[in-house]
């Protein structure tokens, strides 16, 4: 344990830099400059480390936000940017600019994981769902009268699970401790053998064999071993971990304890995305109940030396921290920049110690395997993709929500289950995944065909797919960590090309250059973010070429410089909008 995290083993570590910055942000509505050096001294960190973390994470600000800081998701499923403009009008603010009286600020944020119940916003970090235009005058009034959030209508904050189809895991009724009791009875070797027998693969999307990961970590000799649950579910369109953490949290933590039992870890972390802050109280309550039941703590289930506890660390708005090595950097109170690999986290993870980083759903599956055995699990799904998958289904369908099916279900079958048969396209695995058209709806959701972390975003014929892809491309440019040249420079350039084409100023040359650059960013970037950032625009080009063709200018060249756009500011400043102020 690092000194800074040792206070109250298992408690939410108050001394973590991210938590201290969250505190400052909510107390002062920004990070006051005069607080930074004392905080660095207190936490024994270089002042540059504190500064760099403040500027890395989206939820920390250098200048005061409003007493009500309202962030609208800009996701294609749970976003509401039209509502944002309406609310800005009602409250007399510009997006991103705090109102002069300091009461309110309104801005955009990346997907908040409420894709089955949008439009969604964060108000001072609290999640508000199913927002409609009809609510806006009431909301504006509550803001203008400075009504505390606790007095806002409670149903505005009522996040629903929306489990539409439960399967192998979600239907299974386990009691607290079933997995751990089975594990300690069988022993760590047997548990690992069952996980191997089950052919369990990581549910984050990459599909690495879980038993192999646990084995590598267990075999690595070091003073400490760690278990980290990756609950930084930031892929737009994904929200299944939200439901697992809300209604199956006991199993998530138990899965971590099982892993700890195998790799001999004494401490674990749940790295929770900042957008799910509202879950922290219930998660802490679950942890406390588990400690009381001797499912966490010392000599778990009376096994001498089986000591394990879990801390929750809250992220602060950075998609990249879902990448496991970036997550570890963030846990170590640094910017979330993916590490160079090798070495891999299983040998050099948190604080350089062997660390298993597993997806929320993987850990839940491990508990069920511990109880029912590997054969039971392997009997479901396909040969290469054992078990079931929990899908987050959103977009243009009649019943968005959680669908659990055995691996191998076709896209078409899933569309029929959720009432999304009218789709012209489906984004499998979120923006970093694969865009498919009707011709591919027969493909299977499985590691060997369409691998996915679970995000299924459905787009009907009424959707402008170029707008969708433009949204995704903006997302990646916003979330790039800035470490490597291809991604740091490439993603904003791709954004420029798409903006130009979408605005009707692009030529064939621009489209070709965008594709060339897109392939470079995909092939040469340091981590998965850059390696997938161009997928949406390249997929659209390959599968829906007419969407681009319809927007292109039929001329050889059009400069990026746009005279009309460049004159906009001048027109505003001079209050002139007559013919002579329009030179083009």
């Amino acid at each position, binding site marked *: 344990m690092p000194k800074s995290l040792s206070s109250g083993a298992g408690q939410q570590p108050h001394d973590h830099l991210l938590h201290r910055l969250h505190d400052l942000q909510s107390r002062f509505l920004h990070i006051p400059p005069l607080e930074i050096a004392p905080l660095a001294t207190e936490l024994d960190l270089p002042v540059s480390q504190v500064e*760099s973390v403040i500027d890395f994470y989206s939820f920390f600000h250098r200048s005061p936000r409003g007493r009500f800081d309202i962030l609208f998701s800009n996701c294609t499923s749970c976003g509401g940017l039209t509502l944002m403009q309406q609310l800005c009008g009602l409250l007399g603010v510009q997006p991103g600019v705090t109102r002069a009286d300091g009461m309110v600020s309104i801005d955009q944020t990346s997907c908040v994981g409420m894709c089955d119940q949008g439009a969604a916003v964060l108000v001072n970090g609290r999640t508000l769902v199913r927002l409609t235009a009809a609510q806006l005058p009431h909301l504006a009034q509550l803001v203008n009268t400075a009504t505390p959030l606790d007095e806002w209508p409670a149903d505005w904050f009522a996040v629903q699970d929306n489990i539409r189809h439960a399967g192998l895991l979600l239907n299974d009724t386990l009691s607290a401790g079933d997995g751990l009791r089975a594990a300690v009875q069988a022993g760590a070797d047997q548990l690992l053998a069952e996980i191997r027998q089950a052919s369990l693969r990581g549910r984050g999307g990459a599909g690495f064999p879980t038993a192999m990961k646990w084995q590598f970590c267990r075999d690595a000799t070091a003073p400490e071993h760690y278990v980290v649950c990756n609950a930084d579910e930031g892929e737009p369109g994904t929200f299944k971990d939200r439901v697992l953490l809300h209604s199956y949290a006991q199993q998530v933590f138990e899965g971590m304890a099982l892993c700890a039992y195998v790799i001999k870890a004494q401490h674990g972390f749940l790295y929770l995305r900042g957008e799910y802050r509202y879950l922290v109280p219930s998660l802490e309550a679950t942890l406390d109940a588990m400690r009381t039941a001797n499912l966490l703590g010392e000599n778990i289930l009376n096994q001498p030396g089986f000591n394990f506890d879990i801390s929750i660390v809250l992220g602060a708005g950075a998609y990249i921290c879902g990448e496991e090595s970036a997550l570890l950097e963030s846990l170590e109170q640094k910017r979330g920049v993916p590490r*160079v690999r090798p070495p891999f986290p299983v040998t050099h993870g948190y604080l350089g110690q062997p660390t298993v980083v597993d997806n929320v759903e993987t850990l839940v599956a491990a508990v069920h395997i511990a109880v029912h055995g590997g054969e039971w699990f392997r009997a479901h799904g396909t040969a290469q993709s054992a078990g079931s998958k929990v899908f987050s289904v959103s977009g243009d369908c009649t019943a968005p929500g959680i669908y659990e099916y055995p691996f191998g279900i076709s896209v078409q079958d899933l569309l029929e289950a959720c009432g999304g048969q009218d789709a012209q396209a489906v984004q499998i695995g979120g923006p970093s995944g694969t865009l498919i058209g009707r011709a591919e709806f027969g493909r299977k959701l499985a590691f060997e065909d369409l691998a996915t972390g679970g995000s299924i975003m459905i787009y009907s014929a009424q959707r402008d797919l170029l707008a969708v892809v433009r949204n995704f491309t903006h997302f990646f440019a916003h979330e790039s960590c800035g470490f490597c040249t291809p991604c740091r420079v490439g993603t904003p350039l791709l954004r420029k090309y798409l903006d130009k084409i979408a605005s009707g100023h692009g030529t064939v040359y621009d489209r070709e250059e965008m594709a060339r650059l897109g392939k470079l960013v995909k092939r040469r970037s340091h981590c998965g973010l850059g390696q997938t950032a161009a997928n949406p625009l390249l997929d659209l080009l390959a599968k829906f070429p007419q969407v681009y063709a319809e927007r292109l200018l039929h001329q050889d060249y059009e400069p990026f410089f746009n005279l009309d756009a460049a004159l906009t500011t001048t027109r505003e400043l001079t209050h002139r909008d007559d013919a002579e102020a329009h030179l083009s």
Partner: protein
Amino acid sequence: MSNTLFIDGQEIPFAPGQTIMDASLEAGIYIPHLCHKPGLTPHGSCKLCTVEVDGRSVSACTLPAAAGMKVDNNTPALQEVRKTLVQMLFVEGNHLCPTCSKTGDCTLQALGYHFGMLDGHFPPFYPRREVDASHPDLVLDRDRCVLCELCVRASREQDGKNVFAISGRGASAHIIVNTSSGKLGDSDLTLDDAAAHICPVGAILPKNHGCEVPFGRRTFDLHSVAESDVAHVGLQKTEHHDE
């Protein structure tokens, strides 16, 4: 199998623990690079040393060499990728070579010449970045920073200090100084520190020595960046090996 690998078909030896870059530098084979400097922890961020091993794109500076490894380096496709990356670095910052006192001694510029780069090609970002002239002997001009972190690493690993860090995210990433004021003048950086001279571009420059070595007589005016035996020279006349 013996400890050798193949770069573009040429067999070269390597010692256990060496990267592809280490082995190639020792063998006198040039793999383009910007953020790498022997003696400092490899970084792998600029991606100019991108090579292909069995068709897989990797950074030569961070990937450990392995026996029998077949590395593609000097291929037309990879040279095109590297040229594009150099163009991307140019448009990202504010690089005005004709008015920069580092011209002729700048690795970024030399790489541009090496790859036959004729323009920035992409729309320039024109970022607003701060210049810090608070230090008596050195100036920090962020307009030219390429985020290679050589100064960050040199300060920590060679000078035993911790003067620099990278802050921010994505296109807003920028170099900062580890002082409460954020000013270089308040740091313990001194002119004889490695970090004061390691900048491959003109982001960290010594004051008062701007044109001692005349244009046209500087390192890369006389040598290609690909020549392996060219010692690094600063802008101060006394250090110039050609004088």
